[in-house]
Structure formats: C-alpha cells, structure tokens
C-alpha cells in the first residue's frame, strides 16, 4: 500500500497531507491521555506499536504469485482506539520512508491516511459492530483486523485512481486496475493478519486485566 516517493502529483500530496494532519494531531492528544490514564497499559501500548512495526516489514507471498505486507494496525485500534494508531502507524511509515526508501515523504500524508487512519477506523468500527451483535471478542478482533488491513489497500487504490484516472474508463477503470494489483493479493494476507492479531491480543490479555482496565470488556473484579 505504500505509494512510492514522487508518485503522487504535488497537489494530491498536499491534499492528503492536509486530510491526515488533524487525525495525527488528535492522535497525539489521545496518546498522551492513554499514557496518563492507563499507566499500567504502557507495555501493551508498546507491544501494539511493535506489532505494526514488525508485521509491516514482512512481505508475504500471496495466491496471486506476488508479495505484499500486512499493516498490523487493527490490534492497537481495538485496544487503544483508532486515533492513537495515526501516530504509531505514522512512525512506522516515516521510518520506512527515511531508512528504506519505501513509501516517501511526499506521499507520507496519503500513506498515513490509508494505513494509519482508514485501516484503524475500519478495524475499530467492525470490531464494535461484531461485539455489539453478540459475537465473541476473538471474532470481532479477527474481522476488524482482517477487513481493516484490506480497507487500507482499497484506499491506496482509490488514491492512485484519483491521481491517475484512466484515459478511457476514468476513475472507475483506474480504480479497478489498481485494486487488481492490491486488493486480490491482499485477501489471504488480510485473513492471516486477522488470525495473528487474535493470537497476539490473546497473549497480551490472557493473564492480565488489560481488556477490563481499558474498558473493552466489562470488568469482573
């Protein structure tokens, strides 16, 4: 989902940057609040950031015969709320833009928008929807993480199609072309990310009260 350095026209870079900025600022405020109100959850917060750090570095093979990477933003979005992920995901994207020439500074706004904003919010709302429908925490986390990952790649396809509409078929044609590259490859990887997110959240929560402390489930103590 990384749009490479210089691959979006300057106007689009500015527009996506402006769209992402308020989310990042909001995220910084929320992050401070989480650290203040839940000091005991700092380790879990670090693990959430680390999860997106490790998993977005892994380019995995997919059924389409190409490789892509998961995003890992669903875990933190469910645990600490999606605003926080705008910061944690943004740090990952900045690291990759500066040290790996993967993504870019001009496209940072667009990449933050897809991976650190749309993905986490989709994850969060789907998790909420699932649990409010009476589905288990594990299923909610799986659906949220998997679809959030996928939504990130759909967003990238939209961003590229807006910048480079097809000469004949316009935005729709271009979207289908870019989604053909991203969306299909991502399906099995998004499912794998969903499974992995459930495993990691279980490892973080099974011996602790962290879900109760963060108000995700009703406390029994």
């Amino acid at each position, binding site marked *: *989902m990384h749009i*490479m*350095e*210089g*691959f979006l026209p300057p106007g689009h870079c500015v527009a996506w940057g402006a769209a992402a900025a308020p989310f990042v600022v909001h995220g910084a405020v929320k992050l401070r609040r989480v650290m203040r109100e839940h000091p005991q959850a700092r*380790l*879990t917060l*670090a*693990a959430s950031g*680390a*999860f*997106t*750090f*490790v*998993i977005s*570095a892994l380019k*995995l*093979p997919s*059924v389409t*015969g*190409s*490789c*892509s990477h998961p995003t890992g933003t669903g875990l933190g979005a469910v645990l600490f709320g999606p605003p926080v992920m705008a910061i944690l995901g943004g740090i990952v994207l900045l*690291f*990759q833009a*500066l*040290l*790996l*020439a*993967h993504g*870019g500074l*001009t496209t940072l706004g667009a990449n933050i928008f897809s991976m650190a904003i749309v993905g986490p919010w989709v994850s969060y709302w789907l998790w909420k929807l699932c649990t409010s429908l009476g589905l288990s*925490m594990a299923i909610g*986390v799986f659906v949220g993480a998997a679809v959030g990952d996928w939504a990130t790649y759909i967003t990238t396809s939209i961003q*590229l199609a807006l*910048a*480079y509409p097809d*000469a004949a078929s316009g935005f729709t044609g271009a979207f289908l*072309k*870019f989604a053909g*590259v*991203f969306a299909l*490859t*991502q399906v*099995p*990887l998004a*499912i794998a990310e969903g*499974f*992995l997110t*459930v*495993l*990691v*959240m*279980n*490892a*973080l929560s*099974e*011996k*602790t009260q962290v*879900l109760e402390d963060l108000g995700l489930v009703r406390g029994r103590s």
Partner: protein
Amino acid sequence: MRLISRRARYLLAFATLALTVAPLIFVKGQYGGSDDQGSAAVAASQPGFHPWFEPIWKPPSPEIESLLFALQAAIGAGTIGYVVGRIHGAAKEREVNNNKKTAPADVPH
C-alpha cells in the same frame, strides 16, 4: 481475559502459517512486491512518467535494504516478546504469592 482456547490457539497459528506457505507451494509466480507493481502500473498508464521527487536516502544495495527490513522486524518482534514475557512473568509471580498466602506452612525457606 482469555480470548481463545489453547486448541484454537494452535489452530490459528497453523492457519496463519498455511496461508502464507501454501502460495509458495501451489502457485508459480514472480513474487514481486505489490507496492512496486502499483508504481509500475502508474508508470505504464502515464507515458513519459517519472517521479517528481526522489527518496532523500536509499539503501545502497539490496543487502542493506534487507538488513534494515530485518532490523525493523527484529525490533518489533523483540519488543512484543519482551512485553508478553514480562506480563506472563508478573502473572506467575502473583500466582506464587497468592499460594504463599493461602498455604505458607509447607513452603521451605
């Protein structure tokens, strides 16, 4: 709070592995990166396209690039391992302390 049973845990770990390994066994492909394919699709649709901005620093070789990707993964995985280890260690300690409180007589010092 526990999310899944011990059995479901193994099942999920296996399914995650299977999903990522199966393509390598059953699908013949180039296994290039989708990010680069996206860039290639842009370049192909725009005759004469070249990016208007270059990365300010690039890893000098594929070896250095993979080193940095591995480093990124290692830092992330290391942190998660540390956190899970500490959480589980603390839980165990609590358990031991609780047992001491309830049955202190038969614990030799």
